[in-house]
């Protein structure tokens, strides 16, 4: 899963804290639910400033941080655009 260029950037630290902007905090629990099964070997938890990840030894931290951010982004976009999708299906169903 890691790119060659990223292996050099690996850290042995078992815990990282990922800062997430407050505007995204309502989306974090749903994002963590998905991250939990995408990366079952890692332990994700909500923290005051974002997300804490345990068991990250061997992971490229920059990559992992981006994955966590992406899941939070995806959740926010999903919520924000859900009415648009609902209206599409309503139109399709007549």
């Amino acid at each position, binding site marked *: 899963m890691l790119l060659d*260029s990223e292996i050099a950037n690996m850290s042995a630290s078992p815990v990282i804290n990922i800062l997430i*902007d407050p505007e995204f905090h309502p989306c974090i629990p749903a994002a963590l639910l998905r991250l939990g099964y*995408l990366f079952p070997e890692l332990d994700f938890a909500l923290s005051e400033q974002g997300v804490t990840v345990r068991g990250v030894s061997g992971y490229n931290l920059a990559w992992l941080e981006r994955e966590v951010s992406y899941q939070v982004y*995806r959740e926010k*976009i999903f919520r924000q655009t859900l009415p*648009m*999708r609902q209206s*599409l299906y309503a139109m399709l169903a007549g």
Partner: protein
Amino acid sequence: MQVWPLRFRDLDDRRTILADDSGDYFLADSGFVKRYARDLLTPSDEEFLRDKGHAFEGEGDLAHTGFLTRWSRRHHVGDGTAYVILIPTLRCDLKCSYCQVSRAPLAAQGFDWDEETLQKVLGFLDGLPVEEIQIEFQGGEPFLRLDLLQAVAAFARRRFRSVRFVVCSNLQSLNEDILAFLESGDVLISTSLDGPHQVHTRNRTADSALTETFLGNLERVIGLIGPGRISALPTIDMKDPPEPEELIATYEGFGFTSLYLRPVNYQGFARKSHPTARTSASWNAYYRDFIEALIARNARTGRVMEEFYLAHCLRRILAPGMDSHTDLRNPNIPTGANAVIDFDGQIYPSDEARMLARIRQVDLAIGNVVDGLDQEKLALLAPGHINNFDPDCIHCPYQPFCGTDPIDDLARNGRIDVPRHESWFCQRHLAIFDLAMELLYSADPEVEFTLSRWLGLESLPQSLRPVAP
């Protein structure tokens, strides 16, 4: 301005693919994703999204209506054509180690349609609400019961406005009656050619003389009806896959310009004798290497060999309506017009479903030719055959081009609700669509040579490779 939902996925550590629900896609850097998620799009971002149809000002305006059209076309599957697979016999004169249907021996009794079943099958076909049909004869070896094929063909030619027959045959035995049947322009042959002589012998015939017979028959049939009406597929045994160059050369030698690389299907006999077929990592690596070799060879020789499945996936990315391959459609709701009728008259939603019944894992029959379709079962199966609402697919930019395969999920995992990234179908298709996107955005002239020929274009226009500012 409102932006339609965009899903995204990193292509590599610099580039991200984004796509909306209608399947319109573009490439961007990860900075774009950040700006989009934070509602901080720049004026040039907004201009790009507006120009490319990813945004609109108000419901009912041209951009909104245009998106609705594209989105609904992605969901319109089927053009009034039925695709029905018929199994007139389960008997076969070969015993391939990875036979996915656990075929019956040549002399076995009770594995062919009887006269009553034939009549019921014809009645079922007659009741389909379509005027166009493709009937695929599978088996076993269908030509063992040429009489049944002839009866179906005669009926279908009378009943349907447009009809096409595909006989999936091992071409191990030919006679004058079979050759006469093949002379009709509406009959196509699909056969298996696993590679050079020794590979085909190892995988299929276990006998060099039998392989010689097959190769001779293949040549004879090509001579009779031309390579355009024959498709051949290699099944790749990942324990000892053929060299890509050798495999391509074998196909070229017969005049084929397309091949369809298929992994061993984790069904039937393959479950015991090919346990490696259950995982996808080695397959995906081989597939990528094969495509690279194919592209290099095409550029070197100036001749163009197509790998059908990647070309098909590319076409699905580029346009809606590419739904003729029933294994990759969305929605792919089981109906009678897209069904398999087994040797015993049972009706299944797919070939793989009949295989699961054959090994007694789960009975997914959706009816039989005597009692008709079981509407309750059809309704039960339907939700698993659409990927729009899957909690993983909903975030995937490839969802509009992709499909779903709950039958394969059942075969491998015993359930249909495994997270997508753990399913073989998802792993395989993520790899294929990643590769397709990489190729589409490649600046390598060798890649462009192959892709443009596959797509029937002189060159790849930049409009097929939009990039956000």
